Every structure is written in C-alpha cells, then in structure tokens.
C-alpha cells in the first residue's frame, strides 16, 4: 500500500473537501436553473419558500354556471392554467368549500381534473379529506364518477333517497359517437323513464360529439369531449350536457368561408357579441367544413328541441356568449346573453321536463 507524506495527506484531505463542495454547488446551480425554467418563483437567497412550492385552489361554495358563473369560470381557468404548465411541487384543490353543485358545474370540474391527469400522468391527483366534504356534494360527485379520476379506492358514503341523481359521465379522445349512443342506452335510460323522442336525442348528442372532434380543437394537446346528465325527481327535469375544452364557437365561426355572407345576413357588426356569434352558428348550421353537404351539427342539436313539446331549454355556452331557446307552456323564447367571464370551451345543454 502506498504511503503518503503528512503534507500530501493534508493536501488530499483538503482537495476532497473542496471537490465535495464544488459538486454541491454545481448541483444547487442545476436545481436553480431547472426552477427558473419551470417558472417557479424563488425566494430570498435563491431558496424556495413554502408558498412557492404549493399551489392551492379553493373551490367556490356554489358550482353553478347560472347563479355563480364568474367564480365557476375562474375555477375552471385556474385549473386549466395549472394543468398546462409544469406541475407545481404541491397542488391542492379544496373541495370542502363546495356546498352546492349542478350537473354542468360538476362536469366542468371533472373535465379539468381529467385533463390534469392526462397532462401530468406521473403526478395524478388524489382526493384528501373526503369525509369532510359536504355529504350531498360528495354523493352527487360520486354518482357522476368524479372519484374514479382521483384514484379513490375507499367506498364513498352515498346518500340514498335523494331527489337529484347525477349520471356517470363519459369522455372520449376520439369522435366515437357510438359511445354517446351507448351512454344514453346504458346510463341515461337507467335513470330516466319515458324520455320523449329519445331516438332524436341520441342523434343530437351523436352529432354534437362529432362536431366537437371535427371543429372544436386546433392545436391543443388534450382533445376530448365529455357527456353527462342528471335527473331531478321532484321537478322531473332531465339535463344532458356535452362539454369540450376547445377554442369556442365564437372563435371558430369567424374562420368559416361564408363568414362574410353570414355576418351580412345576420347583421353581425360587433365581434365581441359572442351570443350573436353562437346564434349565427345555430342559424345556418355552419361549421368549418368546406363541403356543402356537411355542416349540420348545431341543426341536429336544435332539431331535438324542436321535435318535443315538453317545457325545457336548449342552450349553448361558449366563451363569453350564451344563446339558446326556452319553451314554457308551449311558448318558445330566445336566450341570449353576454358575460364578462370567458369560458374556454363549449357547453351544449338540453333540459326538458317529463
């Protein structure tokens, strides 16, 4: 074994310490570079503070696009933003705050969570403190299939004898309109008896789904449609919802070949009037297809509403616009509204009273 002089030993020991510290410094530098690239803010002296490592989102108490649209849209947009970039070190969504949830609200929330899981497959979301959630909200979300997205294996306590039933949602990344047919047959009809003109409803949903995958998305990585519904046994109201996270009808219709002619005929002068742009899509059944025998998507959507006499509603919410038709005691009126909050996607809703 080689023997070193005391001076040599001393030098080798100091060199070892120096090398170790260089390695540590280099590792810290690399870590800093990575954090800078991911956009996480650094605290003082280049160290991450506790608040930088955790993103926390508190859900609104009412998840209803009608009575609490601004907060709902804010939640959707925050979740969308969080899923679009690098995942934060910790991501926490507080569902305990939700006291009331509607079918559209629940479906939008489920869609954002599913999107997160697709964008971050190695950092899937998990449910925590489920027992502390509002029991009615928890039960309705469980009916919809919400907890399947959150990897919950424990049985969720369900409320029985409730007036509201939420139907398990389905979602596909392909056109697959057959899945919509099967959803009506295997899910909706299991809950609701006597759906008027169900054959036409199936046709309407099927076309809505085809339309979504053909026209709603441009370059987004997550390109899916979601379908769900609900039944309220006290009011006998049935709701069926199709949702997508695409660019929205107001954006899409402006790129159509016949946009100029369409705008002239319908006297569309203000392109910020998203309700009017949705009405345009309804009026002519326009899509981005260049073939004259295509472009019937929204016509089918409306056809179902026209084929039944039941009180109810058909409406489309897309970006800041909302347009549709409401029937009450045989009288049909239009729904047309523009909102301040921007819903990034399109929601088609059929509602009818049995």
């Amino acid at each position, binding site marked *: 074994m080689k023997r070193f002089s005391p001076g040599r030993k001393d030098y080798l020991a100091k060199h070892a310490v120096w090398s170790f510290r260089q390695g540590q410094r280099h590792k810290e530098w690399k870590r800093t570079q990575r954090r800078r690239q991911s956009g996480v803010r650094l605290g003082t002296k280049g160290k991450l503070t506790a608040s930088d490592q955790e993103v926390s989102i508190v859900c609104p108490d009412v998840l209803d696009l009608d009575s609490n649209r601004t907060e709902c849209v804010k939640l959707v947009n925050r979740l969308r933003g969080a899923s679009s970039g690098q995942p934060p070190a910790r991501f926490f969504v507080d569902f305990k705050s939700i006291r009331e949830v509607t079918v559209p609200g629940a479906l939008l929330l489920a869609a954002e969570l599913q999107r997160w899981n697709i964008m971050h497959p190695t950092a899937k979301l998990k449910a925590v403190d489920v027992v502390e959630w509002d029991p009615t909200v928890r039960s309705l979300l469980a009916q919809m299939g919400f907890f399947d997205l959150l990897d919950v294996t424990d049985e969720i306590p369900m409320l029985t004898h409730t007036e509201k039933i939420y139907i398990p949602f389905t979602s596909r990344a392909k056109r697959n309109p057959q899945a*919509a047919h099967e959803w009506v047959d295997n899910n909706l009809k299991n809950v609701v008896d006597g759906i008027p003109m169900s*054959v036409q409803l199936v046709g309407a949903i099927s076309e809505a789904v085809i339309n979504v995958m053909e026209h709603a998305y441009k370059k987004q990585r997550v390109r899916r449609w979601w379908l769900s519904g609900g039944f309220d046994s006290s009011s006998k109201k049935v709701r069926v919802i199709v949702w997508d996270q695409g660019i929205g009808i107001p954006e899409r219709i402006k790129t159509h070949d016949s946009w100029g002619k369409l705008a002239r005929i319908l006297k569309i002068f203000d392109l910020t009037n998203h309700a009017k742009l949705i009405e345009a899509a309804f009026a002519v059944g326009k899509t981005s297809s260049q073939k004259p025998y295509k472009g019937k998507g929204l016509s089918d959507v409306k056809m179902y509403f026209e084929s039944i006499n039941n009180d109810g509603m058909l409406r489309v919410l897309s970006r800041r616009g909302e347009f549709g038709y409401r029937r009450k005691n045989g009288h049909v009126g239009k729904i047309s509204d523009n909102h301040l909050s921007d819903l990034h996607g399109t929601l088609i809703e059929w509602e009818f009273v049995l």
Partner: protein
Amino acid sequence: MSVAHQDMTTKVSIAKDFSRYPAGRTDSDGPYNGQKFRRKFLVEPLKKGRQVTVVLDDASGYGSSFLEEAFGGLVRTEGIPLEDVKRLLHVVAHGAEYKPYITLINLYIESAEACRPIGAS
C-alpha cells in the same frame, strides 16, 4: 346477417342487420358508420337494379352524418342516378319516432344530386 331477398327485392333492418348504434360518416367515426352501411347493403343491389327496402326501426338513434353519408352518398359519392335511387330505394319506419327520418333521408338524397360526380350518368 339475415338480409331478406325476395325476388328482386332486398330488405335490410339497420338495427338488426348492421348495428343498433349506427353513427358517423366514415371509419374514423367508428365501425358502424354510414359509408360502411351504404357499401355493404345498398350500392350493389341498387346498381344491379334491385329494389331495396331499409327499415329504420329499433336503432338507438340516427344522426344526420350517418343518414347523409349512407343515403345521400348513393348519389353524391357512388354516382347512382337520382331517379334510380328514388325508384329502387324504399325507406320504411313503423315507430312514430323513426318516421321523421324518412323525410330527412329523402331530403339528403335530393340535395346530393348537386354534388354528384361530374360525368356520372
């Protein structure tokens, strides 16, 4: 498949002989699409001058994409003359929910004439 052939007439039930869930235009929409139905059940007998009866009942539902591709496509894509299609093709529905589709199908066939391939007789 149990397509009934009687003399020169072919009868096909979409729900029983093809699918209870017919949907979409082409294979990219799923396996039971309008193009497949048209090619499998309608084109050959119609081109041979045989009567074809299509029964709409019992399917879960029909979207316009399926119907336009299956029936409008006879004229638009296959180039079968409109008069021949109207003479040989009979679409029937027994249930009240399905009857409105007969009018729609006729509309799609008529409208397809404008898109028929140039040079087709």
